[in-house]
């Protein structure tokens, strides 16, 4: 069994590597390169899925060490439950994205760049697998950097556009600021553990106290938080994700930001020892703020992919609410509750990966067919692209947390954990839990509003432009890629109770409890909040009741409705000559009430210029401009950027451009380092 895990794992890595090399070599024949790139990635992803699934239920961790021949660095892979779970998320998505890419990359056949794309795509899958499975700090950082580099190359793949290049640079800078924090964090951990292997960190976790715990927490929370896109470290995310080709956006929002979540799970639950109460509180509050602000900014977006990118921030927030609550429960001494909250967060990680990937692939199909991401130019696509529309709708229902799909299950578990949290302490801190719960409810309701807008404006009613009118359904592979993910949304929703044993290995390792038995009741049909008395829900039951209750409308139809006819007639147009797309509500108008209600946050500015000849009441042309404030960019990052630039200008003084000066610097540095070394 464990041999099979190894074969599948390294077979998968080999397939990714071969795919990278093969697409680069065959780059001249774009068609071949495209097929090779996608097939090898698909094969690798399938093998990795197999290996992670087996490793999740294995009795002992699978680990392999390959010495690198360099001090400190060991290529050590470890598939413990947590790594296997995240690798499973990655490889499941990689399967769907690779299937989708067969068709999505087809227009690139003429441009001959697909070979390069395939190289970076396969390499990024390889590096992501390494990030999730590395168990040596140095190796982890190398994989982490490789991931950032390949992601940068993929984001800026359409580098002809100025904005894409800028987004790429922003991603690169932010990513490295985060990596800097990680580097210091690992060195700090090394001080206490004496080793660089992850197992030595967890063995030494008890030694961290007071200030060192604070430092480790802050460094890793910021470092991983940048990658996860928590507010206020998120500014790169809504720029970089939409700029990338859509299959890469799906990979970025589905998996790459989850590396931050993986890192947090690893460090906060394993290396930090018993976390102080403020650590959990900080994570919880940051989660709530990210969730709420993420969805509020998403509501103001009319660019389909930017809207989805902001929703990633929201969902990362929801995941962190689970993590934060879990950390607080550990401190307060409730490992079972901590396990429920952790399961809620981890389950939402998978769920978000799946439906966000689905939505980005759907947006990619729309972009593919209409060449625009601007929702105000779309509409009516449900008739022209029926399958894409259907799958996008499933994703929209799932991300809005509506039953019976998967998003509902993980949000339900989060609510239950928060509610139970009220009883865990006598201090005023306990009010935090229900307040967080009610803000989570606000977030979920706003997300539903946002997806009514996203789906309704994009897919329903009349097309708002010629491009949307001429749209066509995507090819088989693209539809199939989305279909796989939509099926996963339904399966994870209805079959949530059967999926829960997956988390047993993780919670046992991190918290010492197995929860799947207690979270499930009535032969696996009903999900409970730890005890049947506390609260139950059954998504499968709800789905079954939908079917059973459909007898009611059928009965009504039999009794009454048979005589009535259906007439297809034009929509009521108030007696004006015909309804056109101009009569439709726009995305901008749809979000108007919320823009007014949350005006204090958005600070909307608008400008109307009307041209007229006779009287202002009969304008010949109207120009309308509106923009909302982006406080983080303007208030936080702009001053920071200014400061950094002024320091850089000052630093330029020592960069004389003379090689002698540089040699002198190196000499001085060496002497200083030697003095450090000599000092006992």
């Amino acid at each position, binding site marked *: 069994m464990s041999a099979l895990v190894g074969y599948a794992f390294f077979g998968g890595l080999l397939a990714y590597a071969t795919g990278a090399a093969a697409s680069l070599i065959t780059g001249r024949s774009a068609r071949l390169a495209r097929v090779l790139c996608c097939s090898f990635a698909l094969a690798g992803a399938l093998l990795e899925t197999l290996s992670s699934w087996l490793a999740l239920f294995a009795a002992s961790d699978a680990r392999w060490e390959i010495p690198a021949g360099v001090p400190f660095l060991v290529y050590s892979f470890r598939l413990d439950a947590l790594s296997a779970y995240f690798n499973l998320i990655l490889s499941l998505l990689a399967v769907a994205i690779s299937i989708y890419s067969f068709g999505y990359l087809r227009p690139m056949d003429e441009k001959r760049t697909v070979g390069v794309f395939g190289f970076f795509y396969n390499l990024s899958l390889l590096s992501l697998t390494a990030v999730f499975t590395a168990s040596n700090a140095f190796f982890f950082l190398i994989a982490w950097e490789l991931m950032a580099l390949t992601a940068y190359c993929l984001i800026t793949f359409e580098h002809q556009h100025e904005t894409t290049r800028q987004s790429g640079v922003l991603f690169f800078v932010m990513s490295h600021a985060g990596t800097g924090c990680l580097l210091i964090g690992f060195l700090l951990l090394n001080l206490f553990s004496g080793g660089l292997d992850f197992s030595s960190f967890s063995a030494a976790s008890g030694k961290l106290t007071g200030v060192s715990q604070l430092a480790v927490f802050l460094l890793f929370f910021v470092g991983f938080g940048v990658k996860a896109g928590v507010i206020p470290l998120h500014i790169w995310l809504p720029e970089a994700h939409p700029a990338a080709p859509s299959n890469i956006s799906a990979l970025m929002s589905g998996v790459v930001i989850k590396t931050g979540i993986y890192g947090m799970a690893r460090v906060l639950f394993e290396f930090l020892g018993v976390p102080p109460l403020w650590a959990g509180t900080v994570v919880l509050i940051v989660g709530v703020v990210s969730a709420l602000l993420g969805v509020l900014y998403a509501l103001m977006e009319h660019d389909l992919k930017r809207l989805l990118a902001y929703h990633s921030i929201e969902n990362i927030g929801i995941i962190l609410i689970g993590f934060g609550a879990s950390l607080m429960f550990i401190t307060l001494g409730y490992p079972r509750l901590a396990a429920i909250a952790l399961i809620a967060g981890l389950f939402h990680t998978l769920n978000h990966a799946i439906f966000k990937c689905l939505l980005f692939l759907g947006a990619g199909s729309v972009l593919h067919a209409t060449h625009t991401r601007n929702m105000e130019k779309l509409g009516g696509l*449900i*008739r022209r692209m029926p399958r894409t529309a259907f799958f996008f*709708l499933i994703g929209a229902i799932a991300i*809005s*947390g*509506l*039953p019976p799909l998967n998003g509902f299950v993980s949000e*339900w578990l989060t609510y239950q954990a928060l509610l139970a949290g009220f*009883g865990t302490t006598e201090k005023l801190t*306990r*009010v935090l839990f*229900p*307040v967080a719960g*009610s803000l989570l*409810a*606000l977030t979920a*309701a706003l997300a*539903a*509003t946002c*997806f*009514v807008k996203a789906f*309704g*404006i994009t897919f*329903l009613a009349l097309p708002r432009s010629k491009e949307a009118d001429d749209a066509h359904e995507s090819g088989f592979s693209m539809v199939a890629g989305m279909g796989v993910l939509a099926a996963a949304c339904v399966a994870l929703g209805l079959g949530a109770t059967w999926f829960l044993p997956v988390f047993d290995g993780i919670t046992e390792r991190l918290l010492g409890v197995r929860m799947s038995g207690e979270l499930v009741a009535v032969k696996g049909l009903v999900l409970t*909040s730890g005890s049947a*008395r*506390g*609260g*139950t829900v059954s998504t499968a*039951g*709800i789905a079954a*009741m*939908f079917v059973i*209750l*459909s007898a*009611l*409308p059928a009965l*009504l139809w039999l009794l*009454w*409705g048979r*005589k*009535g006819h*259906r*007439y*297809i*007639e*034009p*929509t*009521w147009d108030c007696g004006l000559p015909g*309804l056109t*797309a101009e*009569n*439709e*509500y726009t995305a901008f*108008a*749809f979000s108007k*009430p*919320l823009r*007014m*209600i949350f005006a204090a946050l958005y600070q909307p500015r608008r400008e109307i210029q009307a041209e007229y000849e006779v009287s202002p009441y009969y304008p010949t042309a109207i120009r309308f401009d509106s923009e909302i404030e982006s406080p983080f960019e303007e208030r936080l990052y702009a001053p920071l950027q200014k400061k950094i630039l002024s320091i850089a200008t000052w630093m330029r003084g020592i960069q004389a451009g003379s090689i002698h000066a540089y040699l002198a610097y190196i000499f001085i540095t060496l002497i200083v380092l030697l003095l450090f070394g000599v000092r006992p």
Partner: protein
Amino acid sequence: MNVIFPALAQLLLFLIISPLVTGVIRTMKARFQTRRGPRVWQPYLDLHKLLRKGMIIPDTASWLFSVTPYVVFLTAAMVSLMIPMVATEAPLSLFGGVLAVVYLLALGRFFLALGGLDTGSSFGGLGSSREMTISAIAEPAMMVAIFTVAIAANSTNLSEVAKSAVGQSWRFLAPSQMLAFGALFIVLIAETGRIPVDNPATHLELTMIHEAMILEYSGPYLALIEWGASLKQLVLITLLVNTFFPFGLSSDWHSPGIAIGLGFYLIKVLIICCLIVLVETTNAKMRLFRVPELLAVAFILGALALISTFLF
């Protein structure tokens, strides 16, 4: 115990009583305004008429337009089985507690809003936008109030909530319960589209919310949506009366207890109807952008309820 009989009985009761509640509120409102008003069973006649008629489907609409009435009706019907009505044990409480109730109603609303956008008319979009906005800002107030109740009962399962309340019938006099009741009552007004938030009787484009969304529906589809809306209204009223005033709730589904339970239940619902009518006749409809203030009041009431749980 067998679950099929209670489920069928409760479903039937909900289906039959819900249009009557709408009728009673309408008639009572008319009397309060010294009009004669329609007969109390007018909603039944309306449903009967609508179900017999043919229907007009807008040519811009897709399959979603036709699916929406079913989703709205089915979610409301399902939710009605998850809350205790005449007995403490709700037939389907195992399938979902108060969170499932809120989210299933949200599912119905999600589809209704899409159905409004699907017609391509400005009215539909206007209604969808306003409905989703108002329900979104009503959500935190609702949840805080519900959490207060759930924390007191230590469960989100509504049958458990009712059971824990039965023993202490005068608990509603506790400040936290009264504040939570106030919050939920405001949410009830907002969610059922009543004055001062929305006016169920208006068809003026500037003021309508719910009606704007369903403007293009006709015939049996409209009947399903109207019935669904009545069901939802009764569900929310039931939620309110049975969590805060669990008087007369039968402990099982046997005949004498059920009859008494039904009697008490009808009286309690009637009282809430009176309250709604009182609010509707003594208030004018608010401007749309004043509604958030009202809901903020509800949220503050809910938060105070929560904090007073902590204090007392």
